[in-house]
């Protein structure tokens, strides 16, 4: 700590530690790689998400991992190296998360400068679980609606057969009145 920083302003060493801590605790997985997949920076969330795929590997290069999970991302990153900005809209991949489960990740790539690509990993498992739960509820509801009603449990049938007691279509009612 130099002590030269103006009052109220953190010095460079302090800012670096704070930035490192920010990067360490970011819940989104972040990689900085070059166009050939060589890893320059990686944060802990990215390692935690990809650990089952990394196995005993060293993570010096990201492409061998992507080759197992999202091979098309490799060509997106390594081809058209002059293209800047977002390279891929976001692809979903599944990865083992525990002994009998999988987690769902979304992967994106952004070229931030020539030869520098940021790869972002988002854990979308909760979203996937909620969607699956919604689907299950929908199927269950549909089954219940299709199940034939037991006699005496449903609404009273109207003479017109419309299903609503005492009503029918306007034309039928009009003809009955006539």
């Amino acid at each position, binding site marked *: 700590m130099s002590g030269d920083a103006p009052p109220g302003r953190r010095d460079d060493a302090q800012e670096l*530690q704070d930035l*490192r*801590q920010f*990067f*360490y*605790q970011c*819940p989104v997985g972040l990689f900085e790689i070059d166009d050939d997949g060589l*890893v*320059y*920076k*990686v*944060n*802990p*969330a*990215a*390692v*935690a*998400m990809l*650990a*089952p795929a*990394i*196995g*005993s*590997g*060293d*993570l*010096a290069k990201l492409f061998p991992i992507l080759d197992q999970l999202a091979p098309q991302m490799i060509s997106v990153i390594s081809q058209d190296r002059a293209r800047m900005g977002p390279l891929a809209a976001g692809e979903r991949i599944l990865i083992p*998360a*525990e*002994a009998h489960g999988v987690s769902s990740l979304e992967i994106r790539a952004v070229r931030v400068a020539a030869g520098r690509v940021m790869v972002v990993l988002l854990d979308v498992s909760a979203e996937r679980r909620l969607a699956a739960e919604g689907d299950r509820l929908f199927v269950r509801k549909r089954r219940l609606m299709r199940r034939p009603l037991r006699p005496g449990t449903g609404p009273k049938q109207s003479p017109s057969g419309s299903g609503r007691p005492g009503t029918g279509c306007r034309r039928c009612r009009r003809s009955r009145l006539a």
Partner: protein
Amino acid sequence: MTNSAASVCLIFDDPGLLENLETIPLDRIDEIGFGLIVINRSGEVTGYNASESKRSGLAVERVLGRNFFVDVGPCTNNYLVAQRFLDCDELDEQLDYVFTFRMAPTPVRLRMLARAGSPRQYLAVRSR
């Protein structure tokens, strides 16, 4: 430790490492030649040795008292490491892993250690 002047000479692969760690006072863990993180049963860091601090770039005072799996080493917050400590009262397992020391991927060998009934748990870290 009755002989406090004796230097701490522990070997990462020693089958008796856990027994030896249990006898070492926390103020002497800096003498250990490999990285050592001591956590309590809640996951809070109670010991972080100089070797580990040097490699991670995190000052000891920034780490002590914080939850290791959430605040210090979130890369281990998964079923391969954190869950093993949660699931096992007694533990002695090794695992090849990747740490993110100073934002760079670093291949390491982890040894997860815990003795039933002890308030301490250990994560020993060695480069590979």
